[in-house]
Each structure stands twice: as C-alpha cells, then as structure tokens.
C-alpha cells in the first residue's frame, strides 16, 4: 500500500520511520512513562553518554500539563507527539539527511523556505545543553536540531546530533489545516480530534483542577526517595526512571499552581540532582567497559 504522508498523520510517521530505518537507525517504541519531552527517553539521555555509536528514531508522547487548553486552542495541547532521531556520533551529512527526510514527507525546499535559525538548547533539569537551530519552514518552527555538548553534567564524547520534529505542527502544515483537531489521522477520515479531543478536555481539567495535590507532593517525595534507593543499589537506569517520574510530578504541581516562585527553584534543583546523580551512576557503571573498548574516549 502506498503511503500518503501529506494526507495522513500516521503515514507521515511511517514515512519517517521508513526513512530513518533506511539510514541505519533502530526504530524504537515510545518510553512507557509520562515525560515532558522525547529527550527524556533513555535512548536519548543515557545513550548520549559514553563513546558507543548509537542511531535511533522513535515517536515519544509528551506531556506538558501547563499547555493544556481544554481542547479549545487550535495548536496547544497538553499531550502531543515528538519524533526523535538521535545520531551518535553526529554524521557529517546530518543536515542533508534531515532535509531529505522533509522531502520524504512532502516538503519541497524550492517551494517552501527552509531555514536554520540559531536556537541553543538547554535543560537545567537534565544538566544538559547543546548548540543548534530551530528549523523554520515558511517561518514556522518544525524541528529542534541540537548537537549535544553535555548531558547530566558530562561532556558528550562523541557529540550526538538530535532531531526533534513537532509532529502535529508538521502535519498541520503539510495537510494545510489550521486546527490540530482537524488533522486527518489515517488518511481515511478519522481526525486527530476523534482520537484526542475528549482526552485533552479531561486531562486539562485533571491537570489544572482535579489532581490531588497532596498525593502529588507525596509522589514527588516517594520518587525522589526511590531514586536514591536505586542509586544506593547501583541500578542507575531504574534511578533515572524515578528522576523522570519526579520531573513529571513537578510539572503537574506547577499546573496546579501550588508551587510558589521561591519553591520552584528548589524543586527544580532536586529534579536536577536526581537526573544528574542517575547519569553519574550510569557513567560510573559503564566507564570501565567503555574505556577498554575506546581508549581515546577516556583521554
């Protein structure tokens, strides 16, 4: 069956999968935890550390509780999809590969104005930063393009290139619709709204109004404690999952408006410490193996 990425949301995703698979990427599935961005996926965060080559692509659902608009805003959602590609080390032709992927989903760069506009990326919670661009298509940001320089407070050796496509935006653009809920999901008339509108309404209400804040505070404390427990027992991947959990619970508390400006910084510092501690433990556990296999890495 022919794909039609310009008429179908799912075909667009499948076309990206086909393309990046052909480039040698592992096609992974979403991480099964609530997270604010695809960068939290262990395939990105933890795999960005260390010298081993790593090429992967996956869709990651992202939850940003404060962006919820009860399904009333045409392009803001508290739950949406990112398409992540991580290429380590960053290949010399990474920009060309990326542009080719746009052609594959139907964007002609001689008809549309594609631009790489400076936008550096920083995630204080992950102790990570990188340089790169937001990629514009006719003035719209469609992708975040980053060369990771540090992750979890460690230098990335070698540097990984990360591409994050905003799938809904891109699809809205390609399909020529002004409202995300009007997107054709399957190319046969099922819309994005059919799939997600009710979800957005209920989850916005839960995020902003319903969620039990005492329970959330409790969850945060428990996640933080469990993270430390994991670190004590040298299971850094499990520790990192608890850091993801704490980060998301913090975002929910923010949406409920129960964290004051002063407290905010302290919560963020806690999440950062959990994430960094996990990365540090992951590094420590893997370092001897890496050093043996990649002598130039430890220099």
């Amino acid at each position, binding site marked *: 069956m022919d794909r039609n990425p310009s008429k179908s949301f799912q075909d667009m995703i499948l076309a990206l999968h086909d393309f990046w698979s052909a480039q040698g990427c592992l096609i992974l599935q979403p991480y099964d935890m609530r997270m604010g961005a695809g960068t939290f996926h262990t395939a990105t965060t933890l795999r960005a550390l260390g010298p081993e080559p790593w090429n992967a692509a996956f869709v990651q659902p992202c939850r940003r509780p404060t962006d919820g608009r009860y399904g009333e805003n045409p392009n803001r959602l508290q739950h949406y999809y990112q398409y992540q590609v991580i290429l380590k080390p960053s290949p010399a032709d990474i920009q060309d590969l990326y542009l080719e992927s746009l052609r594959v989903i139907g964007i002609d760069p001689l008809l549309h104005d594609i631009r790489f506009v400076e936008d550096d990326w920083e995630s204080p919670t992950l102790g990570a930063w990188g340089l790169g661009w937001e990629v514009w*298509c006719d003035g719209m940001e469609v992708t975040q393009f980053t060369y990771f320089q540090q992750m979890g407070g460690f230098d990335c050796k070698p*540097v990984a290139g990360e591409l994050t496509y905003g799938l809904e935006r891109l699809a809205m653009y390609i399909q020529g619709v002004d409202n995300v809920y009007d997107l054709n999901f399957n190319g046969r008339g099922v819309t994005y709204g059919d799939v997600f509108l009710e979800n957005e309404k209920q989850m916005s209400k839960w995020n902003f109004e319903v969620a039990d804040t005492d329970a959330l505070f409790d969850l945060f404390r428990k996640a933080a404690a469990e993270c430390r427990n994991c670190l004590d027992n040298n299971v850094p991947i499990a520790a990192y999952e608890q850091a993801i959990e704490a980060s998301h619970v913090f975002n929910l508390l923010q949406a409920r408006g129960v964290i*004051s400006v002063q407290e905010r910084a302290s919560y963020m510092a806690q999440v950062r410490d959990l994430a960094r501690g996990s990365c540090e433990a992951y590094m420590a556990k893997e370092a001897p193996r890496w050093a043996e296999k990649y002598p130039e890495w430890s220099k």
Partner: protein
Amino acid sequence: MSDFLLELRSEEIPARMQAGARAEFEKLFRREMDAAGVEVGEVTVWSTPRRLALVAQGLPESTRAVSEEAKGPPEGAPDAAIDGFCRKNGVTRDQLELREIKGRATWFAVIEKPGRATRDLLAEAIPAIARDFAWPKSMRWGAASVSTGSLRWVRPLSGIVAILGEELVECAVDGVRSGYATLGHRFHCPGEITIGGAHDYAEKLRACHVIVDQEERAALIREGAQKAAAKAGLTLVEDEGLVIENAGLTEWPVPLLGRFDEAFLDVPPEVIQLTARTNQKYFVCEDEGGKLANAFVCTANIEAADGGAAIVDGNRKVLAARLSDARFFWEQDRKTSLTEQTKKLERITFHERLGTVAHKVERVAKLARWLVEEGIVKGANPDLAEQAARLAKADLVTEMVGEFPELQGLMGGYYARAEGLSDEVADAIRDHYKPVGQGDQVPTAPVTVAVSLADKLDTLRSFFSIDEKPTGSKDPFALRRAALGVIQLLETNSLRCNLSAIRSEPVDGMPWPTGEPERGLLDFFADRLKVQQREAGVRHDLIDAVFALGNEDDLVRLLARVNALQAFIATEDGANLLAAYKRASNILKKEDWRGIEGEIAQTGEEDPLAIVDDPDLAAVVAAKMAERHASGLSYTPEPAEKALIDALHAAEPEAARAVEQEDFAAAMAALASLRAPIDRFFDEVTVNADEEKKRAARLDLLARFRAAVHKVADFSRIEG
C-alpha cells in the same frame, strides 16, 4: 603579487555573530601574516549564514630573506651554556663567531633566515586561525569529538577554500582539507562549484544563487522590502536591525509581502510589531495615515518556483497563530481590572531580602505621594500619583507581559485606558520605567515623573540598604541605570531636592538607609552624575571642582554650578583667573603658608586646602579671616596691593550673595572682577618682601584670594 582567497564553510552561523566573526577573521589573519613577516594590504571579509570569506589583495610571493644576529655567552663559558645557545638558535658550534664586546670575547650566532613562500606560510596560518578563532559560543561535533580536544567552531566546520593567485594553499584543519570546491545555495545549486581564485569567487557564487557580500544582501532586503510595501500602497516601517538580521539569515534574500486578517488590528500596534519582529523577523507596514497596516514583509532565502505564494501563505498562517495568541491575551487581560491584578503581585518575589513586588508597590506609592506633597514634583495631584504607582506594576502578571516582557508598562497603560482610568494615570503607568538609559525619552508629565522617580529611588535605597551594590561590570539589578534615570528626571524637570533629605514612611520595617549605606548611595549618585556629564561633554575636572566643595546633594544646583564654571573657564577672564589662582596656590605651597588656617588646630591633613573644604572648619577660618581683615594693615600697602584688597572686599560678598541665590553666572562674574587686580598685584608687588610683616600680610592676601575663589569652585581640581 597575488590575491588570496580563504573561505571557511560551516553549517548555519547565527546571524547575530556574523559581524563579530568578520572582524575576528581579519584580525587573526593579519596577526598571523604579521608574525610570518608577510605584508598585507587591503583585506575584504564577507559572511553568509554558511561561510566566512576573506580576500587579501596583492600578497607577495615570498617573504624577504633576513639575517639575524644573536649574542651568546662569553668565550670560556661552560660548554653547557654554549651548547644551549646553539640549540636555541639552531646552529652548530663551528658556525659561531667570536667578537669583542666591551673588551671581552663573546660568541655570536649569525642566523640566516631565507625568505619563505607565502603559500607555505598561509598553509601554516590557516589552521592557527581556525584554532584560535573566538566565537561567543562554540561546539564540538562528529567522530573526532570523542576527545574534548577536537576543534571547536560555532557549528560544524565543513569546508575550506584557500587559493593564492590560482594555486591551492594545501592545508587541513581537524580533518577538513582545503580545495578549490565550494558549495552554492543549499537548495538552488546543491552541487559543488570550482573556484579559480579571489578574482572569480564572488561572481561564481552569484551564479549559484549566493550573494556573498552582506552589504549587498542588506541593500537588497532594504530596497526590496520598501518596494514590496510601496507596491501595496503602503510604507515600510524601517528597521535596520531587522535588515541586518535577515541578511545574516539568507544567501539569496527575496523580500515578500503578505497580508494578515484585518481583525487583528484591534490588538495594540506595538504588540503586533513586536510579535512580527522578534518571533518571525518580519517587517511591518503603515498606511497613508501612518497607522499600522495588516501587512508584513518576510525575507525568503529562495526564488520559489511559484513566485513565493506558498511561502507567503505559510508565513501568514504562522503570524496569524501568533497574533491570535496575542489577541487572546489582550482579551483575557482586559477581563480583570488592574486593581484586581495587583493582588497577584503578593506572590511575586521582588528580592528574597526585600519582600514581594506588592511590598515594593506599597513603598513606591507612599514615596510618589510624598514627592508630590513635599512639592518636589510640582503640578501633580497626589491622589493620582499614588493611584498610578499602585497600578504601575499590575501588568507584570498579565498574560501579555508574561509572553512579551518587553511590553511592561506599555500594556499597563493600554489596560488602564481600557478600563477608563484617567489619561494622567494611564500615561504614568505606561511611561514610569522611563528613561531607560541615556538617550531615552525622559518623562515630563508630573504624575509620571512622580511615579518614575519614586520607583527608581525605592529600588536604589532598597538595594543599598541590604548592601547589594553594583561591583565592576556586575550590576544585576540595573542600579546604575536607575540612578542615571533619577539624575535625568531631576535635571530635565528641574526638580529641586536634597537627595539625602528624601524620606518616606518605612514600609514593613524597611526604613531608608542611614549611615554607611546612605553615604554609599550619595556617592553612587555622584559617580553616576560624573559619568553622565562626561558623556554629555562636560569636562570631568570641572565636575570634580564643584564636587570637591562637598556636601552638595541637590543635583540641579550642582549641575548649574558646573555649567556656569564651564562657561567661565572658556572666557579669557576665566582662563587668566585660573592662571593667577595656580600662581597664588604655588606660592602658598612653596612658602608652606598656612596663615590663619595654620592657627587652627590641625587634623593631621597635609593639604591645607582640605581644611577649607571641611565645612565645619570653613566657618572658623572665615571668622578669623574677617577679624584679620578688619584689623587692617600695619603698613601702607602699595597701590596694586590696595587695589586687590578693595577688589576682594567687593567681590567676596557679591560672590557669596550670588551663590546663595544660585546665580552662578553672577558668582563667576564676581570672580572675574578679581582678574585684573590679581594680575596687577603679581606684576607690581613683591610677595616675598624683606620685611616679615609685609611678607606675611601679602601671603595672607593670596590665601584670601584663594579662599574667595573656593567659595565658587575648587579651582585646584581644574586642569590646564
């Protein structure tokens, strides 16, 4: 002689960094050539998002041979010393020669440095330039980045073209080898193109849809955008910053005009312009009446197959989404009154040791009212001043300012007007952050002045009271700007107040700083004033001359005095009086003459003038002086001496009266009346008379002259 071309290609260089990069490129190239002894004439540097290019005209084919001599150890020095000397200079022992230096045989090495081919020197210089290039932010990339020692560049460095004349300069930077090939426009001409040399570089690129000269691209954007607007019957709102930014984002700029839904024009024009500018880098347009039109000009980087229709349509949608967000904020925010909004300020920390923004607002409101009630700010209604101050920060919690922080104040003004508050209050809310730095408009509407002044004074006194002062280049709370704002407000509006007397009731236990912090604050104002006046072209020594009088904290009076002094010093009388003053001072210093001052208990200060500066002692000195003058002389003065005494008798009270009445021009005129008598005194009278009583009396007279001048300004601080 050959022209040299060097192109360093990379992935997209941030627009804002390109100007700096061009300067850095030329600087490093000249540095390297200078070190290699290659004479460099004219250098041209270009940048696009994807390349930096440098053309140096008329480089020599090689450097000249030079012969250098180095002096070594004396004959008979230990072998180790002589061997070391040889090693250092790259010669063998039998190449050394002995020469007689100050009667001592000394080894010399003559080092012949042959000329070197410029091409070889360039091949060495290019990697050095790349390695030392200072970018505001740089990164590592690719497989080589497994080591942190790999090359850093702003974005991955992808190609090097280096051609001297028509010959390749072979070199490699971190695995990137030089060649003749470069790339044209990313989409129009994706293949490689071969460059012959500096002579055909720009034209070959132009043929491949790359305009390498940033000035040319800027001109295309500037004129193209104007034309596009004119074609639609509109006028472009010019914005040179945007022109340069777009020139840094494109290799083949094509300005295109698009329209947005007229309904968005309900949103304040500043919001539309800001959204278009900062988020999208679009120009905006005005109609015949000077009103913002529903049009934008974007700058594409391609000559699109459909003439740009799809691009314009895409950009229109993006702008529409942004503007609908802005309109949503505009509508949402107006549903809540500013008074209601201010309650949320209790939740925002102003500074951890200074309470919330609500606390600050309370202090500013009281101070604004006080400034009006005390008559410092005239012509304002105290109720309106307080009301405006209470609402001035309310827009900080609006959605719009949350999204566009640079609209603070402006939005508050709009919202105030929308809810029917008086224009005076709305204007004060809008403009109370002004002036923001030198050159910004300074408020003159009384209510605005009261709020603006109170806001800045409160910020200053608050941070000084917790000892958070600017240090060096660090001024995180923008206190220098606040102090400058206060100075500009006082000066522009001729507001009279002694800064040290400004008080308002303490709020939440936050009193005015007293003691050390308060003095610190006054000194801080003095420093800012000096900086500001210096920038305005006032001689710093004249400012010092007035400041040295001490204890002046009325800035308006202080400035009037400085200005009068500046005018006076420029006249012939002023210049001559200054010369006479210096002469008198030198004599007194040479004679170590303390006169009456010497009779007063010393404080350990060595500089006798310091005593006159001391306000407490000045009165004592004056009293003693008056006593002595009254007692008259025990001998008959010479005519010139008598004339000076008379002139001082007349000038002293006149100068004092003028200073009292703040008529500083008159005070200067009083001093000017001393010029002829003092000149004549120096011409005709011998100060160092043989008779001790005459000498003492004449030195006293000079001291009196000096003191009279000091009533107006400390002339010892004046240069020249």
